[in-house]
């Protein structure tokens, strides 16, 4: 099912949790909703499921306007952040419950529950109570409960946040596998960028209730729309060198260090900018425009992580360890085309 959000807004008494949010999810897509804590991810999900009424805007499922439709009519599967499995029912009872409300005959209910339980590998736990399950098992039961009714839309609210690192990794593969098997349009909420980058078809990044970028995972990383997106993605975080533009050259914060860059050609003089460079986008180059000093070097496998300073600003760069850099060395760097961005320092907007 195709989902369209049209200027959806949610205001609470004193905060606007989601503001003028517009996006389209294509049928069968797995979209990650990514953003820092408190940015409105759960609020957006709750509006999609109908638990929270919208303050403004409209929501469409395919061509149907569902903005005012109550949750029980929307046909949505929702996996809560803490699973919310019914404690008084067995795993079988939990998975069957959504079918009961659809008046599916008992024999068929059990058959479908068993089938979905096999899919998420909880078929041997059918007679247990939720309190007798591990976190990962509870999560899979919650997913089974959400999937069994063949939902038009599957919503997962940080489903992996309670799991340990290894189980997280396993479970996200599992979610991806199940999603591809069933082909259900899915929204996966997370604040873990790695999780989002690894499983989604598309990522929607938000901040303080406002959509920042809605794009393919690699585009989000390679073509961030603004400073926030560039900062949010990437590990180690992107290097931000503050400075100004003068006659097509970047002048660092100390006013002395400067480097001429072709990308600065059209930018007006005196503009306050951040030159933002991913650590893997620096290249040692005798003729490079940036004269830097090495302050520290860490060995990291076949590469080295060098700490350098340029015009009074420290930054990190991956350098081929064969170069044998040492602390105190003066080196020149040039920049790759990929992973180098210029942002307006006041607005955070990308300068192209």
């Amino acid at each position: 099912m195709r989902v369209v959000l049209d200027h959806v807004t949610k205001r609470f008494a004193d905060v606007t949790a989601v503001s003028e949010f517009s996006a389209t999810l294509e049928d069968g897509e797995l979209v990650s909703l990514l953003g820092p804590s408190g940015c409105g991810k759960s609020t957006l999900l709750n509006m999609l499921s109908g638990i929270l009424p919208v303050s403004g805007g409209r929501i469409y499922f395919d061509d149907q306007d569902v903005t005012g439709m109550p949750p029980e009519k929307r046909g949505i599967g929702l996996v809560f952040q803490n699973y919310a499995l019914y404690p008084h029912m067995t795993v079988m009872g939990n998975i069957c419950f959504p079918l009961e409300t659809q008046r599916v005959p008992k024999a068929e209910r059990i058959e479908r529950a068993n089938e979905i339980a096999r899919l998420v590998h909880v078929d041997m736990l059918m007679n247990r109570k939720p309190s007798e399950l591990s976190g990962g098992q509870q999560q899979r039961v919650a997913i089974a409960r959400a999937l069994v009714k063949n939902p038009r839309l599957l919503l997962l609210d940080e489903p992996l946040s309670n799991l340990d690192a290894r189980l997280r990794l396993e479970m996200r593969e599992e979610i991806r596998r199940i999603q591809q098997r069933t082909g259900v349009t899915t929204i996966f909420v997370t604040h873990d960028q790695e999780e989002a980058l690894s499983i989604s078809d598309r990522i929607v990044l938000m901040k303080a209730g406002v959509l920042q970028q809605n794009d393919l995972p690699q585009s989000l990383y390679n073509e961030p729309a603004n400073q926030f997106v560039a900062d949010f993605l990437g590990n180690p975080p992107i290097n931000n060198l503050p400075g100004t533009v003068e006659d097509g050259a970047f002048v660092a914060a100390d006013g002395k260090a400067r480097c001429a860059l072709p990308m600065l050609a059209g930018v007006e003089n005196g503009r306050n900018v951040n030159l933002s460079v991913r650590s893997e986008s620096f290249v040692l180059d005798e003729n490079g425009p940036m004269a830097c000093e090495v302050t520290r070097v860490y060995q990291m496998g076949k590469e080295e992580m060098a700490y350098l300073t340029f015009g009074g600003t420290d930054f990190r760069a991956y350098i081929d360890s064969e170069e044998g850099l040492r602390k105190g060395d003066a080196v020149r760097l040039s920049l790759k085309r990929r992973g180098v961005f210029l942002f307006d320092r006041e607005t955070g907007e990308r300068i192209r």
Partner: protein
Amino acid sequence: MKKNKQKPDRELVDRSFLARIEPYLYLLPFFLGIAVFTLYPVVNVVLMSFKEDYSYLTREFSQWGLANYDKVLSDPKFAQAVGNTLKYVLLVVPISTLISVIVANLLNQKLRFSALFQTAYFLPMVTSVTAVGLAWKLMYNKNFGIINYILSFFGIDKIPWLENAAWSIPSLVIFGVWNILPFTIILLLSGLQNIDPQYYTAARVDGSGSLRIFLRITVPLLAPTIFLVCIVNTISCFKVFSELYPLFNGKPGPFYNLYTVVYYIRFAMMENRKYGVAAAAAIVLFGFIFVFTMIQRVVQSWMSARKR
């Protein structure tokens, strides 16, 4: 040297002995209260029930024996009292539980006038049964009572609530239910507030309407509290007396037809001065309450075992 070595040891022992009995010293006043006002009377009643021809004034009795029990169990009045009491328990407990589960559930919603409703429902709790019983007596009045007045709008003829033997049971039960509701509702409300609202949300997203959520989520999660309420109310209903007293001018029903066990005990003691008989009846009542409570506990553990 030896002395020096022993002295601290002795001190240590003494101090730890004091420390050990200290908490009991704090408990002593409370325990004395319990002993004097609860334990002593209980033991005394048990003993009294086996003393034949016991005189409270002279404290004399002819012999130990079961004569009091024999008298109680063969007395048709006692059989009638047990029958009435059982009727009362079996009507008031289920009705009041049913009503209070529904009312507590309504009060638990964020209704517009819920503060008003809460006050209205908890009013009986802070008023005395006897005073309120007198008010109910007026409301039940055949000719001038508000209940018959309201019923007249629905074309219902005047009902002799308190004057007719057949109607006296329903009027006692209605008053008893009303009287027991607030405490029951408070217990259930606190039980309801312990249920994570996320389960309701989950059930709604799973496609359930309010009724299904109530039956499949609320009631099962509230079951432990419901059982507690049933047990507490059963015990208090078995002891029905003060509800009866004001309604029928101190008589057990219009034609002495509403004897309850506690009324029988009081009657044996105050009117007939048969203390041994009264004590035996009290022990039999205790037996009834004990058996009923046990049955409920067995049912409860059977039900919770079946659910897993």
